[in-house]
């Protein structure tokens, strides 16, 4: 078993203003670890989606904006990013059921939101979501993916028409 060598944590206000800052920081760490350009771009999108979800959903408009915590474990073979909020949790099960590309849907059926979790699931190698106390999204990206074949993307098939 490989153990974590380094851990980095950030806490930023749950505001759109800081999504880019988190993205750039994580991008710097991924670059430092030796991820390829395209993998870094995937990680940037996944992290931004997770943080954006917190910004959009975790805290109600009237309530004062809370914080979002981003933890990043760096292992020899992978990067593990955890995004945590302390806001009200959403119904993970009902949301995951609706995950999927927009294939076969008419324009009217498209949602303006809702693609975020689908993108996280698609772009990262492993994704776990828990909603017990606030929402925790934990996502993993492996270095040299061809060497760790047991961690294959498990993307649920697109809903049939």
């Amino acid at each position, binding site marked *: 078993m490989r153990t974590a060598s380094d851990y980095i944590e950030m806490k930023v206000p749950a505001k759109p203003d800081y999504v880019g800052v988190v993205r750039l920081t994580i991008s710097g760490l991924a670059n430092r670890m030796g991820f390829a350009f395209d993998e870094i771009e995937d990680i940037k999108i996944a992290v931004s989606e997770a943080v*954006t979800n917190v910004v959009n959903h975790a805290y109600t408009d009237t309530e004062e904006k809370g914080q979002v915590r981003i933890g990043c474990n760096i292992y020899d073979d992978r990067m593990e990013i955890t995004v945590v909020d302390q806001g009200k949790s959403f119904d993970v099960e009902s949301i995951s059921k609706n995950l999927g590309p927009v294939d076969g849907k008419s324009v009217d059926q498209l949602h303006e*939101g809702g693609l975020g979790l*689908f993108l996280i699931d698609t772009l990262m190698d492993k994704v776990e979501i828990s909603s017990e106390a606030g929402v925790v999204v934990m996502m993993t990206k492996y270095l040299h993916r061809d060497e760790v074949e047991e961690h294959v993307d498990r993307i649920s098939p697109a809903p049939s028409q």
Partner: protein
Amino acid sequence: MNLQINQDQINETYELKLTGEVDAYTAPKLKEVMLPLTDKEGNIVIVDLSGIEYMDSTGLGIFVGALKSSKANNSSLKLRGMTERVKRIFEITGLTEVMDIESGVKGEAL
């Protein structure tokens, strides 16, 4: 980390040239500029994405909203100049199927 929007107009044809990043922070600005254009019947709105370095689902959502608005108001929306990266997230999410996207991809070679 910002988004610049340059707008050109010839009669009812509007061209928006985007440069920078479209995320949760910059997307409201894009929506503010694009929606009033797609809301008006007969308008042709062309969005040039060749200067976009980063886009995530918040940006996709704005384009979905603009597409809906164009269908509802008989205007048209075309996207062009996508980099490989931007094209990829449109493909992954299946939006290439519903959007009017001009081929001829610009951007980094893989």
